[in-house]
């Protein structure tokens, strides 16, 4: 039996094809191109065969011979497209895998360069890498503590330097 057999009547086209010879997606895609102008049916008359029938929509005219030829062409075109897509899928997958693997490797190289071979922190004289809290809050607290200590020491010094009874005279 042939891969493709078409039967044409006045308002109807029937195409019988070998299910193994054409990918299922190609059959669907070919049928779908007629869905706006025809009533499309898919059937499996016998195992291993698929039947596609097109019927003119109500009020519409159908050039059955042209529709049959167009359906056959579409079926072959979609099968070819599917084959190219399948053959190219490995190449596409390898390109995508290569792009992702190189992108994953790159950040590690840059981080190592910044940190140096031993992983120590890089030189940051301006404190750009420090957070605001580390840069200001901590220093302010230290400075305040130091000022308090300095003030207490000065008071102590001043107190010991005063002559006994001098303070009482002033009051």
């Amino acid at each position, binding site marked *: 039996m042939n891969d493709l057999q078409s039967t044409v009547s006045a308002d109807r086209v029937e195409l019988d094809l070998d299910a193994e010879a054409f990918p299922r997606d190609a059959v*669907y895609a070919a049928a*779908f191109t007629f*869905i706006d102008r025809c*009533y499309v049916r*898919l059937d499996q008359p016998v195992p291993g065969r698929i039947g596609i029938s097109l*019927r003119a929509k109500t009020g519409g005219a159908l050039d059955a011979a042209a529709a049959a030829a167009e359906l056959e062409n579409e079926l072959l075109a979609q099968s070819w497209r599917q084959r190219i897509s399948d053959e190219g899928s490995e190449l596409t997958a390898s390109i995508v895998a290569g792009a992702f693997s190189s992108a994953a490797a790159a950040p590690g190289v840059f981080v190592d360069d910044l940190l140096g071979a031993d992983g120590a922190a890089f030189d940051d004289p301006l404190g750009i890498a420090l957070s605001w809290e580390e840069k200001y809050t901590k220093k302010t607290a230290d400075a305040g503590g130091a000022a308090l200590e300095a003030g207490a020491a000065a008071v102590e010094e001043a107190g010991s330097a005063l002559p006994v009874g001098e303070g009482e005279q002033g009051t």
Partner: protein
Amino acid sequence: MIELRFHHELYDGFAVDEAAKVYGPYGTMELVREPSGYVVRVTATAEGIAERTLAAELCNYALGLTIEKQGSGEAAV
């Protein structure tokens, strides 16, 4: 009444069911699952709608939805 048969290898069961629901307001739909596929018995009840047209539109809708589901990676069940 028109009896439509949808082969289970070619049509998605959910698509057939959805098509019957969409065209339900225009007729009576009786769904049956048989070993060979899904059977929908269509009887037009709406005024001015031909039973043959209703059945054909239901077929187109079921096929379109099946193809859409295939495209989105869902297999026919």
